[in-house]
């Protein structure tokens, strides 16, 4: 839903997205140690696999973006994780694009990183019910921000897109609701079953 293909955006937007994404990925990589790479990568695989399952909404179905959940679980490591996942999707399935990789990484990972980093400590301390509420709101908000960023990427690319971009934001509303609900129930599940997963990534292996 947020995979912008090659051939839609203007050069300045592509370059801007690319530079921003490169910086964010570099920061994300700095924050993890060599020993944590397997953990980040395997969690990223879990999210990647999840995003491939279609969730039915009435007669049609959607794929989840999972930005909010990834931000909560991975923190800044969301940038390398999303970068690699989008690269593979572009190469293997033809979703998204090569030139738009940077923009897409920023659109999906940035809201997750910001919202997730803010919410993770709250969720770690909250009861399962409250954690679910926070995570639900965070997930929905992350989708909304991604929708907004996608619209901005379009509007900044060409004045022709401005009206389309506005209408497009509305199409994110069903996904917002679904992600909010699934994200909330998901965190409630994790909170009851394996609360350690919601503690921030830390290098106990390196001790």
């Amino acid at each position, binding site marked *: 839903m947020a995979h*912008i293909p090659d051939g839609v955006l203007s050069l300045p937007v592509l370059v801007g997205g690319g530079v921003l994404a490169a910086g964010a990925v570099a920061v994300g990589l700095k924050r993890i140690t060599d020993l944590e790479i397997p953990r980040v990568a*395997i969690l990223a695989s879990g999210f990647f696999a999840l995003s491939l399952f279609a969730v039915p909404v009435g007669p049609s179905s959607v794929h989840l973006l999972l930005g909010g*959940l990834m931000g909560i679980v991975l923190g800044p490591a969301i940038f390398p994780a999303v970068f690699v996942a989008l690269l*593979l999707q572009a190469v*293997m399935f033809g979703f998204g694009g090569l030139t738009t990789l940077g923009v897409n990484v920023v659109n999906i990972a940035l809201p997750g990183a910001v919202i997730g980093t803010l919410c993770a400590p709250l969720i770690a301390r909250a009861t399962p019910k409250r954690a679910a509420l926070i995570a639900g709101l965070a997930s929905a908000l992350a989708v909304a921000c991604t929708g907004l960023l996608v619209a901005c990427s379009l509007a900044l690319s060409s004045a*022709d897109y401005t009206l389309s971009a506005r209408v497009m934001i509305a199409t994110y509303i069903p996904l917002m609701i679904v992600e909010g609900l*699934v994200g909330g129930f998901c965190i*409630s599940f994790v909170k009851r079953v394996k609360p350690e997963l919601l503690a921030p990534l830390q290098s106990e*292996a390196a001790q």
Partner: protein
Amino acid sequence: MAFAPTRDDTDFAIERLDPRTRILGACAMVLAAVAMHSVSGQIAMVAASATLASFAALKPRDMFHRLLHVEGFMVVLLVLLPLTMEGRAVISLGPLALSDTGLRKAFAIVLKVNAAVLATMALLATLEPVRLGRGLATLGLPARLVHILLFLVRYQTLFRDEGARLMEAMRARGFTPRLNLRTWATYGNFTGMLLVRSMERAERVEESMRCRGFSGKFPLRGTKPFQAADIIFAGALATLLAALLAWDALA
């Protein structure tokens, strides 16, 4: 073990190219496709990519399916552009009018997107992810990203299979998705369970790596030098793209 099902039995020239050649070639073609201004240039780019794709090991049927499977995003954009862009109304449907500039713009986008997707699929879709990873590493992608990529390739299929089995378990006990809260709660449980399982597996894999002497440094295998075929392919592609870009500039 590319994700893409391939036509086997026969030998495909593209499969013998060095991964680096394929990556750089795909990037060059996508950039050229994006840069085309004229309709004739865009059509020529689609033709060039399609020709190359016909030499790829990807089954034509799968390739066609992928082209059809455009993202919801694209559908929305392609429908909205003719409706929202100003211009001469070509077709009127009650209060809605499709403008000529909008239609032309939408058509241009369709051409560019298809040229780029075809080029990517032709050169990269059947490249084994492991070789893709090594190619990217020698092209300067940080080793950590390459390792994340290799793990992702290995584990996403594992988790996809695990998820598919969980979904089956849900169906086996009579679950049918409806528009109600219980359906979303069930999907939430599903998501949570898959995450918990990936976390637990991550822990055990990390331990198993430590048991085999892992101390943070990954051994990564090198790549072979470029072959004659790579140089010929690169030369031909560069000539073709230069010609197409020149034509586009003149058109």
